[in-house]
């Protein structure tokens, strides 16, 4: 990785005020993404991964409490003035959401939607150049330029997801946040979209934060992986190392949920974790994973855990890892 990361997230907290008690969705996350690097962010519903993504672009609902630092080339996104933030969105940071049908305007041609983004945000493309750029973007994501005249309903799910990726790339961002970009898609179309993202990354040196619960997809497309549970990163390191030998019992459970076809260890042995992800308002004491953990020991309910060294370039928040200061 280069000396200066493109994005540095420090001690990020996201809390949603509600009528009852506040909901702490992200509880102190540190991350770094280098230029052109792909970081995979894994976790299940409610773990805080989408709140984290929203915080990076300041897209969370008004009133949400966000603290910490989100440094883009050393500049804090969280304290930017509205004008500067508008300039940074699209041209530096862009996001692709899941559910392409709901993100696109159903009564506007897709070309017009891409053109609007270019007109509002691009510094160098103007006038007649906009239409040309729309055609280029569609071809870049593998659609014929004439598709610009289509309405979203005339496109299939995979094609709409391609349009959204094209839209995100409209102003040449350096970092793309892809939040479950393939979840609603079929296996074959998912493979097509993943390949497209890989190609774009090689072509433009684009950095990508790839968010999904599907650990096997992340292991296949990302260099580095961060696994989130209950609002915190509980394991991080090189993705293949993590997938092959998870250090945190939660990661192990998540990895086991995606069986390796042909491996007899998985044959007729579906495996998961007991219980459900916790309610962020009522987190278990100590290590928040302990009630579901197959390896929990006596100290777990009372020991606060943090990311401790767990081998080469790896860390995990578990008393069992080699770098844990707590005797387990």
């Amino acid at each position, binding site marked *: 990785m280069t000396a200066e990361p493109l994005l540095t997230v420090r001690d990020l907290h996201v809390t949603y005020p509600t009528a009852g008690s506040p909901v702490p969705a992200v509880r102190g996350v540190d991350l770094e993404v280098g230029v052109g690097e792909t970081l995979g962010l894994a976790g*299940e*519903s409610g773990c805080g991964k989408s709140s984290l993504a929203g915080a990076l672009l300041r897209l969370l609902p008004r009133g949400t409490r966000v603290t910490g630092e989100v440094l883009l080339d050393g500049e804090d996104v969280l304290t930017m003035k509205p004008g500067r933030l508008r300039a940074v969105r699209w041209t530096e940071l862009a996001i692709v959401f899941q559910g392409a049908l709901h993100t696109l305007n159903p009564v506007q041609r897709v070309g017009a939607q891409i053109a609007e983004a270019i007109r509002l945000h691009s510094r160098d493309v103007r006038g007649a150049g906009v239409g040309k750029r729309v055609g280029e973007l569609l071809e870049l994501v593998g659609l014929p330029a004439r598709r610009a005249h289509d309405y979203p309903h005339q496109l*299939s*799910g*995979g094609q709409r997801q391609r349009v959204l990726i094209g839209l995100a790339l409209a102003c040449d961002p350096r970092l793309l946040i892809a939040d479950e970009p393939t979840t609603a898609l*079929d*296996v*074959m*179309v*998912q*493979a*097509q979209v*993943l*390949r497209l993202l890989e190609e774009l990354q090689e072509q433009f040196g684009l950095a990508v934060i790839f968010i999904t*619960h*599907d*650990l*096997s*997809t992340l*292991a*296949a*497309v990302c260099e580095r992986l961060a696994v989130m549970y209950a609002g915190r990163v509980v394991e991080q390191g090189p993705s*293949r190392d993590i*997938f*092959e030998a998870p250090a945190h019992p*939660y990661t192990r*459970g*998540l990895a*086991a*949920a*995606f*069986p*390796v*076809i*042909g491996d007899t260890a*998985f*044959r*007729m*042995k*579906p*495996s*998961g*974790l*007991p219980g*459900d*992800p916790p309610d962020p308002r009522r987190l278990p004491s100590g290590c928040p994973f302990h009630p*579901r953990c197959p390896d929990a020991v006596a100290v777990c309910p009372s020991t606060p855990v943090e990311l401790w060294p767990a081998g080469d370039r790896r860390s995990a928040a578990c008393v069992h890892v080699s770098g844990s200061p707590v005797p387990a």
Partner: protein
Amino acid sequence: MNAGPLMEVRGVRVEYAGRGQVARAVDGVDLELRSGEILALVGESGCGKTTLARTIVGLQRPAAGEVRLRGKPLGYDRRSLREHRRAAQLIFQDPTGALNARHTIYEAVAEGVRIQELPGVEEELVAEALSRAGLRPPESFFTRYPYEISGGQRQRVVIAGAMVLNPQLLVADEPVSSLDASVRGEILALMLRLVRETEVGMLVVTHDLGLAWNVADRVAVMYLGRIVEQGTTEELLTAPRHPYTRALLSVVPEVAEVEQQILSGEAPDPTRIPPGCRFHPRCPLYASGEAARLGIAERCLGEDPLKLPACHAVA
């Protein structure tokens, strides 16, 4: 014990008409399932797998062919359907949509007991079903509503509602795809256990080949309304013969480097089924010229392969 298959599908066709076109969603399918067996039906969305599942449980009437349960063809009069819908239970993808938000868990499970007028004490039947589905103690769930429990627990309630009727056949359509990854395994383990304990036969409709490897005895691969290959799970997933099955397997994300065969486009349109082999417009063997080298290219274009695996190159 009955030696013959529990459920048979013979020459089933299902057609949908619309805008002057006819979609042949299921285009001539034969399938068998034995008691205590789990069969995975896999394919892309739009291949007709959900329509076939609905036909098997009697929610969809075929244009041709028949569904048999223990050798007896399914009739479409009220009485036969009512009987069939007790014996063959459907479990949907989304448990939240399958449960009435304004009914308690008790009501959700008791409803079927009342409709089917099962003998026995209702409360005991409901409690036993919840308990067998892993919701213990069952009484603590009686008065709760779907929104008060987790997604995994909701799917357990749906399973309890199906199992309370002592079905002979379970048809599960993507039973875990809306659940969190860490919860999926537990639900699959529950289904596997129930099949082993009760000798119910189960058809699992899924696009997830990993799931098939996890629980299925046999796998049938469906493409554009037709079964194109079937076999034991070990055979089919470790030595696939049909190029479509091979392509599906190659895109399962895995860390090991396998050369991916990403098919272009999406599952094709059942209103315009290609002539000859219906897979040929997307077939890697055909596109690469391999079919021509084997001297079968003309048959791919003009002859519908009917024998399984449905491919001129391997038949």
